[in-house]
């Protein structure tokens, strides 16, 4: 127990140590996170009226970000599967970074859901009157928190073993790794099921949403990790091989192509049928009754996704610069498409036929930026700690001069 506490203490200490760039980065993130906290306090005092959400469009930027981030978290499995299932060892060293990303991102997801509550003071009612298994929301609560615990356990155990300078016992983490792989698929499926089960929301009421969620997650997630790994190898001494990045590129290629194919299926079904249910899709892609706030967004997203797919299938994306461009395009494209492009149109037009548009307020945007900053802060700390620990530079033995018992 004492040794575990020294481990935690060393980690805390380490997260404050770094060069000026590290300090600057952390300061900026802290400031943005605190600004977000301030905006959230405003919301807490005045109610959700500080957001742009209305009765008509009752979910907005918060749930949009939440949906996107669940995908990002699920994508950690995309690093784990090649290593543990296919014994592709290119990615072995970076698996922990993927899982730490999952931990940080799931924390962000939980924050996004919490800030969306109209009465956060009652959030604990979830423990006392949990409507499981009838409400899909309770499934999501279990899926997300379970995934958080699984990844916390795996990363925490591996890091702690490295700190103690001993070989991790396979029985303590390999079973959890396999559970986490299945769980990763489940978090995104369950999140999709949150939306698809409503007869009253034809835009979501489609079986293709869950597979599309997975496809886009397995594109945006590795894209994010490719960029992160390059930053890690630039600013730390941790070695990340190009092979690892190219394995991720291959995953992205397949996922992006599937994502675009499924989008095509969806668009065809909606528009060729041309029933009354097409109204939401028409609002999203072309505007409805002169209201077209989302139109430029969604076409940007489609352009970005097509361009990213095109770049990824070209041999040119074996050059890191091209690959990075494709990654950024995919991340932004999918963020738009799966966030605002998925959540908002389902509410437009309303069941009564009104076309009410949603525009996020500054307060709402600040809360979102704050949560993103907090997530990045967490992830930076995680990487800051795990690089020296995994490299064996920070061990119990080195700190206290005695072999860990």
């Amino acid at each position, binding site marked *: 127990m004492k040794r575990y506490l020294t481990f935690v203490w060393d980690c805390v200490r380490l997260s404050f140590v770094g060069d000026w760039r590290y300090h600057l980065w952390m300061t900026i993130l802290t400031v943005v996170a605190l600004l977000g906290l301030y905006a959230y306090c405003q919301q807490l005092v005045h*109610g*959700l009226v500080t957001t742009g959400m209305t009765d008509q469009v009752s979910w907005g930027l918060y749930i949009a970000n939440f949906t996107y981030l669940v995908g990002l978290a699920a994508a950690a499995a995309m690093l784990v599967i090649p290593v543990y299932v296919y014994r592709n060892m290119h990615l072995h060293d970076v698996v922990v970074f993927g899982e730490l990303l999952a931990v940080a991102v799931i924390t962000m997801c939980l924050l996004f859901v919490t800030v969306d*509550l*109209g009465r956060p003071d*009652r959030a604990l009612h*979830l423990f006392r009157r*949990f409507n499981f298994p009838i409400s899909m929301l*309770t499934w999501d609560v279990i899926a997300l928190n379970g995934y958080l615990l699984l990844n916390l356990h795996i990363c925490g155990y591996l890091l702690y073993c490295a700190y103690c300078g001993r070989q991790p016992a396979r029985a303590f983490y390999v079973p959890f790794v396999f559970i986490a792989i299945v769980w990763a698929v489940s978090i995104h499926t369950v999140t999709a099921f949150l939306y698809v089960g409503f007869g009253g929301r034809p835009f979501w009421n489609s079986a293709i949403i869950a597979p599309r969620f997975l496809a886009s997650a397995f594109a945006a997630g590795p894209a994010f990790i490719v960029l992160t790994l390059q930053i890690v190898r630039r600013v730390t001494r941790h070695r990340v091989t190009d092979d690892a990045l190219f394995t991720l590129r291959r995953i992205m290629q397949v996922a992006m192509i599937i994502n675009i194919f499924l989008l095509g299926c969806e668009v065809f079904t909606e528009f060729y049928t041309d029933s009354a249910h097409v109204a939401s899709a028409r609002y999203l892609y072309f505007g409805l009754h002169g209201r077209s706030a989302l139109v430029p967004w969604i076409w940007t997203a489609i352009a970005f996704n097509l361009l990213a797919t095109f770049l990824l299938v070209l041999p040119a994306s074996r050059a890191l610069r091209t690959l990075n461009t494709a990654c950024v395009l995919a991340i932004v494209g999918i963020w738009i498409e799966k966030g605002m492009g998925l959540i908002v149109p*389902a509410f437009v037009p309303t069941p*009564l036929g009104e076309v009410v548009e949603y525009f996020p307020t500054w307060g709402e945007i600040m809360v979102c930026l704050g949560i993103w900053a907090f997530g990045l802060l967490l992830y930076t700390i995680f990487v800051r700690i795990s690089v020296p620990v995994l490299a064996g530079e920070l061990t119990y033995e080195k700190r206290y001069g005695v072999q860990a018992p």
Partner: protein
Amino acid sequence: MSMDRREFLRSGALAGAGLAAAAGLVVRDRLRQEARDPTGSETARQLPAPPPAVSGLAEDSLLRMQRELARAMAKPAEQRRWVMVIDQRKCVGCHACTIGCVAENKLPPGVVYRPVVTEERGAFPNVHLKFTPRPCMQCERPPCVPVCPVKATWRRPDGVTVVDYDRCIGCRYCLTACPYGARTSDFGEYYTDGAAVGADGRAVAGPRGPWEDQANHEYAKRWNRAGRASPLGNARKCHFCLHRLEVGGLPMCVTTCIGRATFFGDTNDAESLVSELMATHNVYTLLPHKGTQPRVFYVA
């Protein structure tokens, strides 16, 4: 990192006790519970008797419904089956029901339980308007109830779907589930926010009108939003004015309807006006293909 036996037993006992307590809570929650009635268990009570019908004149439908209401309220809740019948041929689109409801339930801006949907039909000069008042449909199979993560909403035995403001966490999942848009969320708006400011930017009427913080009587309780209390932040919906029924009053939208286009009553009472209307007219419901089986019927 070794643990002696005493320590092991102690931590084991602690973990076990915690687990047992948690399991007990979960089990208790799953046990069959009596139907909760937020308006109290007392249903049979002395209601003021409406005046008898004047012979020779057609009786006002409100008086008849009032009489039937007293009869229905004398029965236990599970023997009543409330329905609303709306005669669109008589609706003139005056929105008196919408406003009456806002006044009765002290609804803040943005929260409307019973809007009147106005549709324009035809092309000039052959145009006409169609009005569809839309209260909560009080579905027999409400999509909004199962989705609630904290069991804060349920269907009462008399067919009214209610929300417990003290339980609702404000996730707005039920708003998403309702195919009629009949659920609203109280986002915390006030009529006087930013309104009571003169052209020169000075406040004219103070920060907030005193009427904004008056308690309503939904579910026969006093709810006051002052100080961020419920129902601020909660999901809110039409509840057929349960609190008025309890004291012998018809729902506000029925009473304020100037065209006598809205009818309310108990279909378990075969003699009631609503039973009669449903038997003699070709009634329809909104979005029947959603399988929700609404308890609000329209005559067009």
